[in-house]
């Protein structure tokens, strides 16, 4: 697995965990009847922080652990190809396009909740849900392009 593929796999794992955490927290808020703007926007902040810090820490940890495993197995210093060449850039762009498409559809669906008379908090909740989901779908798409070619 290349350096870029590892980064995508880490991002995919991190965002899957974040999505799980987000859904559990939303479920808990609804259960305890504390689904209000203060709690929902606080959750937004936590999710944003987790997404940034979690991804950075998970990436660093993965590469350190990968380097140690490589050294132990082969007794050679790990060679990290951390350059992003034209193929990586094209795959990244294709993934970003999928993420934009998915999040745009998600934003439109979120707006639809107004049609059904739902409060704005539901829309905000769905917006971040589709945002995280778009990132996950884009990462899966990128990994698929690395594996199958294009």
């Amino acid at each position, binding site marked *: 697995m*290349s*350096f*870029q*593929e590892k980064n995508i796999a880490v991002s995919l794992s991190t965002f899957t965990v974040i999505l799980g955490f987000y859904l559990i927290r939303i479920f808990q808020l609804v259960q305890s009847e504390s689904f209000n703007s203060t709690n929902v926007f606080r959750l937004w902040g936590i999710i944003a922080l987790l997404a940034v810090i979690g991804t950075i820490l998970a990436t660093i940890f993965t590469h350190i652990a990968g380097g140690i495993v490589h050294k132990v197995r082969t007794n050679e210093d790990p060679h990290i*190809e951390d*350059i992003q*060449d*034209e*193929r*990586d850039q094209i795959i990244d762009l294709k993934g970003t396009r999928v993420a934009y498409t998915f999040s745009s559809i998600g934003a439109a669906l979120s707006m639809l909740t107004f049609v059904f008379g739902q409060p704005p908090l539901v829309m905000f909740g769905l917006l971040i849900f589709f945002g995280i989901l778009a990132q996950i779908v884009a990462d899966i798409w990128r990994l698929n*392009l*690395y594996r*199958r*070619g*294009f």
Partner: protein
Amino acid sequence: MGKSHISNNIRKLRFFRDEMTQQQLAEKVGVTRQTIIAMEQDKYSPSLELAFRIARVFEAPLEEVFSYQPENELT
């Protein structure tokens, strides 16, 4: 997605260059080894610039390294 219409002789040309490794070729043309692997497996068609860089490494004309096969001729 999958097999490209552009095929290449990179593997063969590497062999005739004293079994040049994928890593050596990747460093010479400024891409990752994974990109060379993807090209050899016909899973990626390089940009024109990269194609010329590869041809220059092998000191061969572009047509000797890469060939194009239209879709209706693919078997």
